[in-house]
């Protein structure tokens, strides 16, 4: 990975440009997959657990999507509530601004949240409601930040929505509050959503090395806490291309250095911790990280031994979309697994080059095509398993291909040193499960009919 520093002094973080919003290729009607920008914005902001998230539009946007992610909260549960203006025909004909006003007031008076996020959706964007105006008026009236999130589904892909949510964080929230105290070892995590509690693992590791998380952006986040993110010593962007722009903007405005990293695999985990420690500028913390990494890697390699033996040489097709691909590849390689196919459908050129660094030309790159292409690759490369998001799980099961879920809906934490061990166990248990043999065999009476024919 690119070093974030040169000459021992901090000059540029990895890449000093905001990733351009490359005009996303237009989705092909009749062959599109993936969520909308509203979805992306929601995924990014909903983990702010104590805020209320209000979706302004007809029912489908919220009704079909809430409670579908595995982001966990250690405390407040308000963001797990589904709030929507649930517009009816009359609201659309006569305008729904009044309804939005009333909805915001209702939520604030009943739940007293530190903030309300108000999401535009296709219909309310099309009818041209003045959502920003409503939010502004209600912020003033109620004394609670009411934050418009202008990322309706039809502007583009999920990734674009995530980027737009990053802008919302930067423009409306970061810099709005001050922490009670800071230390010189405060780090922000950006793009870590605490799926299945992964962030808690990472936080424990950081604490052991004498570092702490100042703002969680946004997994298990709190609204006020995100507001004081500008006081951190460094930003780590965790597996998120779409939120890189946020880190770049923060570096420009507040001079906070950042780096991109991942916690999948022991190597990446140690690298990320070292990088953090380095950016705190504290030699002592660096030494502690070195010790911690050495100790953990040693322990891990002992504990992984039996699993490595069973996984060695196994072949996997990985289809995660985007940044996670390269970091998961590293983790799999540490377990002795050969990645023979990898999805690059949502990856940027930079992601692809990182993937190439890790697997070279040995693997098949799957730029698009979803299920059908994944299966083709599994067959042609004789893969033993598919590692992908829930969307493709049942396709794999139908073909009786062992499957491990790696995306947002999963219930297992794979980050950090212990996470790699969990992943190894999960892979072994999946591959060795008796069900594969059972499904591969015909019923005895079916065989007999065959003979009779």
């Amino acid at each position, binding site marked *: 990975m690119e070093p974030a520093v040169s000459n021992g002094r901090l000059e540029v973080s990895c890449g000093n440009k905001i990733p351009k919003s490359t005009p996303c290729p237009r989705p*092909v009607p*009749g062959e599109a997959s993936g969520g909308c920008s509203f979805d992306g914005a929601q995924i990014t902001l909903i983990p702010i657990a104590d805020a209320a998230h209000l979706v302004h539009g007809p029912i*489908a946007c919220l009704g079909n999507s809430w409670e579908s992610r595995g982001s966990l909260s250690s405390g407040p*549960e308000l963001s797990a509530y589904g709030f*929507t203006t649930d517009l009816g025909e009359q609201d659309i004909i006569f305008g729904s601004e009044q309804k939005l006003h009333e909805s915001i007031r209702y939520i604030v008076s009943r739940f007293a949240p530190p903030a309300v996020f108000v999401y535009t959706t296709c219909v309310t964007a*099309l009818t041209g409601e003045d959502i920003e105006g409503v939010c502004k008026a209600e912020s003033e009236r109620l004394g609670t930040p009411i934050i418009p999130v202008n990322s309706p*589904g*039809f502007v583009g892909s999920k990734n674009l929505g995530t980027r737009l949510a990053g802008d919302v964080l930067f423009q409306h929230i970061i810099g709005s509050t001050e922490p009670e105290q800071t230390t010189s070892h405060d780090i922000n995590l950006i793009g870590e959503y605490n799926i299945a509690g992964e962030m808690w693992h990472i936080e424990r590791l950081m604490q052991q090395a004498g570092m702490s998380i100042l703002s969680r952006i946004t997994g298990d986040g709190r609204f006020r806490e995100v507001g004081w993110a500008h006081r951190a010593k460094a930003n780590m962007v965790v597996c998120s291309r779409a939120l890189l722009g946020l880190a770049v903007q923060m570096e420009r405005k507040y001079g906070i250095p950042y780096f991109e990293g991942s916690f999948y695999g022991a190597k990446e985990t140690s690298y990320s911790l070292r990088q953090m420690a380095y950016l705190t500028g504290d030699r002592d913390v660096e030494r502690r990280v070195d010790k911690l990494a050495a100790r953990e890697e040693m322990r891990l390699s002992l504990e992984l031994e039996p699993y490595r033996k069973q996984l060695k040489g196994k072949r996997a097709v990985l289809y995660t979309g985007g940044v996670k691909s390269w970091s998961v590849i590293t983790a799999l390689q540490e377990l002795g697994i050969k990645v023979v196919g990898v999805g690059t459908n949502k990856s940027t050129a930079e992601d692809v080059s990182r993937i190439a660094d890790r697997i070279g030309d040995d693997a098949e790159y799957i730029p698009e095509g979803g299920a059908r292409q994944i299966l083709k690759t599994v067959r042609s490369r004789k893969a033993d398993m598919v590692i992908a998001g829930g969307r493709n799980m049942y396709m794999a099961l139908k073909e009786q291909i062992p499957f491990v879920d790696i995306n947002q809906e999963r219930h297992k934490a794979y980050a950090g040193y212990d996470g790699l061990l969990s992943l190894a166990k999960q892979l072994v248990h999946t591959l060795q499960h008796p069900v594969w043999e059972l499904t591969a065999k015909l019923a005895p009476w079916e065989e007999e009919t065959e003979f009779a024919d």
Partner: protein
Amino acid sequence: MLIKSATKPVSVNPLKVGQPLGGVLALQGMYRSMPLLHGAQGCSAFSKALLTRHFREPIAVQTSALQEMDVIFDADRNLEEALDHIWSKHHPDVIGVISTALTEVAGVDFQSRVKAFKRERALKDSLLFSVSLPDFHGSLETGYSSTVESLMDAVLGLAGGKSPKKQRRTQVNLLPASYLTAGDVMEIKDIIASFGLEVITLPDISTSLSGHLLTGFSPLTRGGTPLDSACQMLESSCTIAIGASMERPARRLTHAAGIPYHLFAGLSGLAASDAFIHFLQKISREPAPVRFRWQRENLLDSMLDAHFYYSGASAVVALEPDHMLSTAAWLEEMGVELKRLITPCSTPALQKTEREVWIGDLDDAEESAQGVDLWISNSHGRKGAARAGASFVPAGLPVYDELGAHTSVSVGYRGTMEWVNKVGNVLLAERGRGG
């Protein structure tokens, strides 16, 4: 009838889902079909994810993938492109074009574009139809039944719309409501068949979403009613509609081909099962098979065993309209006090019921659930039930935190018994905790 609704301006923890979801669900019950949502791509992605989570099966659905500029300039160009793409690549037997709130509000005339496409391509042996399902009306149930109605019209059009040449006395049509699981549909088909009747089901999710092991990926549905069977519905001697929402599609067959229909509001509970068996005995002119005698007795015995735990129990039920009514009926047979019945939208059947019904959300359920024993709703209700201290029983859609919800059976004597025991066990466990 008494319909109430809370006065809050905002929906908190909605029970409602968008109508297009119902349309997508209905089309999963047609063989080699593809629902095409005319809207931005998020709507189809959410529908797919939600149904996949519930059924634990791949779901067929596509989108016209509108983006902002398409909506402003020519949304129907996208539609045509999508149709073209799906048609030339996958040759489905059925495509249902389903509008979304976005295309409805944009006021595009997609219906005539669909007709034009059909004419130009001279599609003869396949079915292309459209249905208008804005999210700002109704919910899952209405989306599903409207789609079945449009599908029925399209089938009638394909079959010539004339009265059939011959009528088969022993052939009947079955129109199952949206809330019936793949297991339910299978059970109902089985019950009907045990009277020596042949049954054509539309739509039939029992052969597409109950869990097949077909290999060879296809983006189209892998089971469901084949189009030619659907066309043979015109030769049936009668139509059996389960759930009030299926009355309108059933009526289409009556109007077009003079086929009488019989409506059953639900098939859960002793009375509902009795009525159904009695009806089948009459139309088949066959005595009820002896197994129903057994099943009925088993059910009654279970009800006796369970009544200790049910007596004095109270419940909040939050489900789609037909499902809610059917569930209320069997719970009442078990002596459960119905504290509040909640449903996401109003329907003609609700206007007629004598029960007090709330049009509302899961927050309205929570408000009334303090001190109540049971909470029955989709999985989104779990947290609210826990806050209110009520025991939670998942039902409806989506159920994503329990295995087998999509194949569990709640109809007929056997299905009722399954639920009497399932809910009874929850009450029993609660009692064990001193609840």
